[in-house]
């Protein structure tokens, strides 16, 4: 086992009655216990070092939870800046899938020069915000322009705003037939293999969570169990890009035609990418209402306790902190992977439905589905 942990997924192919799926995790979901007894400032400084992959979302969730626990509120401009960085990090993570993971499915090498460009996206924006130049230097606009250029060149071959205007399956098909990028060719390949509906099982999207119920679950004796394998109203819910994008016209069209299957899930990541520049511009312009940011949800629970919910790249990230004066008494994090890769969750349900002529057929579909839902950790997949 590596310190980062791993997911073990075994699919035992069934004869007509669906597959059996065994899913277990060695992810270190209680790593944040290291913050216990630390001054909160120290805990927040350690946050991005410990959770370096979605460091921005983790750091923002941490600040919001601590602020609620202390009964303080940041300036609106600070919140807009935080949200800008979280959205940009989400775009970077989706782009990473497109330039690093997706070529492998087409039997092509990843393009390191693209990966490097994508990885460098966050630097200038973070620097601007750290220097207090938000909204004045014009730097956020340059970051958005750079993102647009990258999305145009690497993914859509048109302005992302034009792609996000695609509103039905027919227009999406025309796009993937006419566009030579990896993203378009992967969607075309899924369609040519007849895998559009692969993994289209019934799913339950994570609803808005009432902070009182959430606080009760997390503070209880079974709080640690909730962190490891969260359920809501008896269900192992899904929190993914599809959950966020499902109300758009394109997603509605795909859900109606193919359900929450492979094609819909891949397209949901593209849809979220395509919409990112307009969301960022709204934040820079101060036009985004807080209600438009699911990430803005945070609650003071009293008694030095605060909760925050941030929409990170892979889904909703929940932080809960209890403070004793300046020190952390208890810290809990519920990450999206624990919802999505719950033994009874969306991935298990989708893998149970996969069918194919051979083990390898099923393995390819399973790999694509797992990557589309994106566990943020290594996984081992066995099919027999």
């Amino acid at each position: 086992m590596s310190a980062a942990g791993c997911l073990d997924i075994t699919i035992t192919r069934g004869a007509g009655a669906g597959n059996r799926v065994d899913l277990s995790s060695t992810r270190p979901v209680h790593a944040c216990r290291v913050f216990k007894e630390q001054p909160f400032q120290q805990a927040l400084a350690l946050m991005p070092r410990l959770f370096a992959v979605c460091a921005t979302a983790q750091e923002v969730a941490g600040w919001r939870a601590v602020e609620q626990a202390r009964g303080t509120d940041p300036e609106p401009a600070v919140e807009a800046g935080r949200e800008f960085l979280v959205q940009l990090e989400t775009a970077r993570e989706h782009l990473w899938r497109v330039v690093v993971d997706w070529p492998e499915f087409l039997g092509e090498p990843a393009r390191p020069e693209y990966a490097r460009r994508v990885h460098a996206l966050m630097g200038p924006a973070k620097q601007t915000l750290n220097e207090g130049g938000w909204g004045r230097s014009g730097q956020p606009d340059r970051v958005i322009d750079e993102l647009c250029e990258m999305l145009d060149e690497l993914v859509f071959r048109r302005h992302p705003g034009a792609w996000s205007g695609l509103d039905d399956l027919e227009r999406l098909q025309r796009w993937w037939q006419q566009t030579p990028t990896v993203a378009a060719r992967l969607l075309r390949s899924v369609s040519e293999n007849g895998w559009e509906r692969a993994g289209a099982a019934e799913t339950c999207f994570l609803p808005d969570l009432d902070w009182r119920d959430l606080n009760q679950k997390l503070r209880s004796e079974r709080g640690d169990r909730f962190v490891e394998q969260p359920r809501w109203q008896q269900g192992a819910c899904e929190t993914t890009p599809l959950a966020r994008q499902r109300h758009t016209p394109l997603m509605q069209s795909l859900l109606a035609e193919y359900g929450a299957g492979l094609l819909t899930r891949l397209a949901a990541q593209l849809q979220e990418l395509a919409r990112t520049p307009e969301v960022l511009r709204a934040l820079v312009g101060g036009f985004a209402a807080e209600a438009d940011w699911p990430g803005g949800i945070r609650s003071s629970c009293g008694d030095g306790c605060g909760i925050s919910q941030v929409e990170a790249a892979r889904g909703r990230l929940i932080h809960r902190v209890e403070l004793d004066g300046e020190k952390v008494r208890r810290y809990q994090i519920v990450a999206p992977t624990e919802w999505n890769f719950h033994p009874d969750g969306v991935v298990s349900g989708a893998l149970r439905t996969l069918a194919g002529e051979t083990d390898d057929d099923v393995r390819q579909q399973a790999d694509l589905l797992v990557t589309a839902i994106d566990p943020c950790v290594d996984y081992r997949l066995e099919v027999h």
Partner: protein
Amino acid sequence: MCLAIPAEVVSVNEASDTAIVSLGEVKKEISLALVEDVMPGEFVLIHVGYALNKVSQEEAERTLALFAEAGLTGDEQP
């Protein structure tokens, strides 16, 4: 949690843009696609087979100490 692990670079293969890194007693091959000018003896943060960033030795040691405190190290395997 999405952890990235600090590791020391043991050797660099410029042709394949990869490196061998040391995670405690374990050696592992990783991609250097995301970072430039990495030299043996330097430290990088690794995640799912990629070096994400270079970090100073001091920062790597502080982070590893944090991992040890959280009970996350000591059983690294390739």
